[in-house]
């Protein structure tokens, strides 16, 4: 057996906006690092005899994708997902890193839970795992969690995702105290009094189906508050899963004023409308809910014009026990790691998103917002690389799903464009040719 000395990705379209690169070329990986990027496509086997060579002609070679918003369900709900299965799904979707939200059982509100997650991640090693710690103890919205200790254990941000911080004073204190540790604060923006008992977007469809609606104002009011607090404290704030047109407009105006705000949206918010709920499809139930076509158009625009900084999946695995039930009783959320690339590719094909902008949204900006490595193909960097085949069409079937849960509204749909090779620290974590 010959010892593989490294990987050579030949003749791909190297898209590396962090270094202003978008051209055909070769990328050489050795000892887990990017050692050469040759624009001419001229790295030959030559002195590197035992290279594994991948022909990337017609494919995109991009910095490893980073999903800054996933739920890995471990500890506590391992029947839905584990760090192992979730990171395997991440690799299959082209992601080399994920940031996992703290709403586990128990909540990741202290260093021991953070350490547990990272131990599991180290053992699994399908993707880098960046834990997000809770804003408040137990995510109860009452007292601050131990940001310093959690940061020493490995958290990269704080959020009470899944539960809005109702108390404005606590949110202000969280922004302030997070400043001592340079931790970004991620807001799940929802006014719970307005959204109470709601199960879908409020409007014509909710009225037609007799389902309790969640008004767009429930999100916008809270974003307005978060922006006011971010500006008042001068601290960076990140808005999770933006779903409405007015939310995009609020964020755009705040950025114009110089507010240190960033925001993400999820692929389902630029792909599906509330009409996906018709027939009471619980696979279209999520929070925030799917909105109208006008909101979808505004989200797309926000991704194009920079109002929105990142695409994150909000990967939320649930078993059939939580989803094959009456609509009101069904859990919120869908899995998303394995469909993010094809759904974003649709924006590239049909809505004028440039490939470089796609890489910013899925890699460069998440790295920058979280303050973690990645998002760049510069030489000397850890070799986290994703190869995307923009033309590959496939039917996303239940059998293909790598995640432990299968709750996707995109099942059995024909999708186009996907990650075919995922490389983490120079090691292949996913190769579509092997499935």
């Amino acid at each position: 057996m010959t010892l593989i000395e490294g990987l050579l990705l030949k003749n791909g379209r190297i898209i590396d906006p962090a270094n202003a690169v978008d051209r055909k070329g070769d990328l050489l990986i050795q000892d887990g690092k990017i050692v050469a990027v040759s624009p001419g496509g001229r790295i030959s086997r030559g002195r590197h005899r035992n290279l594994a060579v991948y022909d990337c002609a017609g494919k995109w070679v991009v910095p490893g994708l980073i999903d800054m918003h996933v739920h890995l369900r471990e500890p506590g709900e391992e029947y839905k997902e584990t760090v192992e299965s979730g990171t395997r799904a991440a690799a299959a979707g082209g992601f080399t890193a994920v940031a996992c939200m703290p709403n586990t059982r128990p909540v990741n509100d202290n260093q021991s839970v953070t350490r547990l997650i990272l131990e599991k991640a180290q053992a699994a090693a399908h993707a880098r795992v960046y834990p997000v710690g809770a804003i408040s103890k137990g995510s109860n919205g009452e007292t601050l969690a131990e940001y310093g200790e959690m940061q020493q254990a490995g958290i990269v941000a704080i959020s009470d995702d899944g539960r809005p911080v109702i108390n404005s004073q606590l949110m202000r204190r969280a922004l302030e105290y997070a400043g001592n540790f340079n931790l970004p604060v991620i807001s799940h923006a929802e006014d719970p009094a307005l959204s109470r008992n709601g199960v879908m977007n409020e409007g014509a469809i909710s009225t037609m189906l007799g389902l309790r609606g969640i008004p767009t104002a429930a999100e916008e009011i809270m974003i307005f508050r978060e922006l006011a607090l971010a500006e008042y404290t001068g601290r960076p704030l990140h808005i999770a899963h933006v779903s409405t047109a007015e939310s995009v407009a609020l964020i755009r105006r705040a950025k114009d004023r110089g507010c240190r705000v960033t925001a993400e949206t999820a692929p389902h918010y630029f792909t599906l409308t509330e009409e996906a709920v018709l027939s009471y499809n619980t696979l279209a139930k999520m929070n925030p809910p799917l909105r109208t076509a006008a909101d979808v158009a505004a989200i797309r625009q926000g991704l194009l014009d920079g109002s929105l900084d990142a695409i994150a999946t909000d990967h939320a695995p649930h078993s059939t026990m939580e989803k094959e039930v009456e609509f009101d009783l069904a859990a919120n959320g869908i899995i998303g790691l394995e469909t993010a690339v094809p759904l974003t590719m649709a924006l590239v094909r049909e809505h004028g998103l440039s490939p470089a902008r796609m890489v910013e949204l899925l890699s460069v900006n998440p790295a920058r917002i979280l303050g973690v490595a990645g998002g760049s193909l510069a030489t000397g960097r850890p070799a986290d690389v994703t190869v995307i085949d923009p033309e590959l069409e496939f039917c996303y079937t239940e059998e293909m799903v790598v995640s432990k849960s299968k709750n996707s509204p995109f099942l059995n749909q024909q999708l186009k464009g996907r990650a075919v090779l995922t490389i983490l620290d120079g090691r292949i974590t996913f190769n579509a040719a092997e499935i």
Partner: protein
Amino acid sequence: MRPDYRFTHKHILGIDHLSCDDIEHILQVAESFKEISSRSIKKVPTLRGKTVVSLFFEPSTRTRLSFEIAAKRLSADTFAITTASSSATKGESLIDTAKNLEAMNPDIIIMRNAISGSPHLLTRHIKTSVINAGDGTHEHPSQGLLDLMTVKEHKQRIKGLKLAIIGDIAHSRVAHSNIIGFSKMGASVTVSGPATLIPRNVERLGATVCLSVREAIRDADVVMPLRIQMERQNDALLPSFKEYAAFFGINRQTLEAARPDALVMHPGPINRGVELTPDVADGSRSVILDQVANGVAIRMALLYLVLGNA
């Protein structure tokens, strides 16, 4: 009605799914069944040997009894399960309950459930016919049909009439089914009531919104106040029943705006003195008890037609 018309529905989930021809046909069949209930021996052998199970997850007197009488007058065997005696209280899922029922081979399951869309969920998991006897705030198709039948009996038509529905439109599956059914059949439907109880974009169902009750009732052929529930006060949707009665209740005076021959309907049970004063409820324009009587005929028709396609 088209000459080649056939009733093809295996389930009755809502009026939304029914065509005008379907509705006409159901009303005709119901009309022909109505006479059975006035016989001294109120029973025909039409559904002999058929099994009808009613699965009620919400309290109901009128609708459950009406379906049961309808099934028995057609000679079907009927069985009733209510929440108190079902496995739902033991934590069994709705799908498991339904699959267990299906294993005993009933011909129809009549379900009432507090959650919108639950009968739709049932039809995706079992093969038995399902009739929706009210799902959450979505639809109550047999009520909508019996209301259409009652109006048609009194007015000989639906097309061109004006129906005014007053009250808690947001939480009323009866309002939903009636808005859809009456507008589908060519009537104009106006809804009114406290703005807190008018659902967003209700126009898309076919209704016109008019916040003035008096204006909503003006020249109406049918006035239908809805039951207002006590819990709406606690949800901060209403200040008090007293204020509701004063500003949104139907009484002899408010009814003056309607056509002189206007019908007064109510899906029951009535909060006397709140949404409707007793003199109007019991007055000459009230057809509330005709609605109840027609309910049996409509449900006989639905059981008969659905079993014809099972």
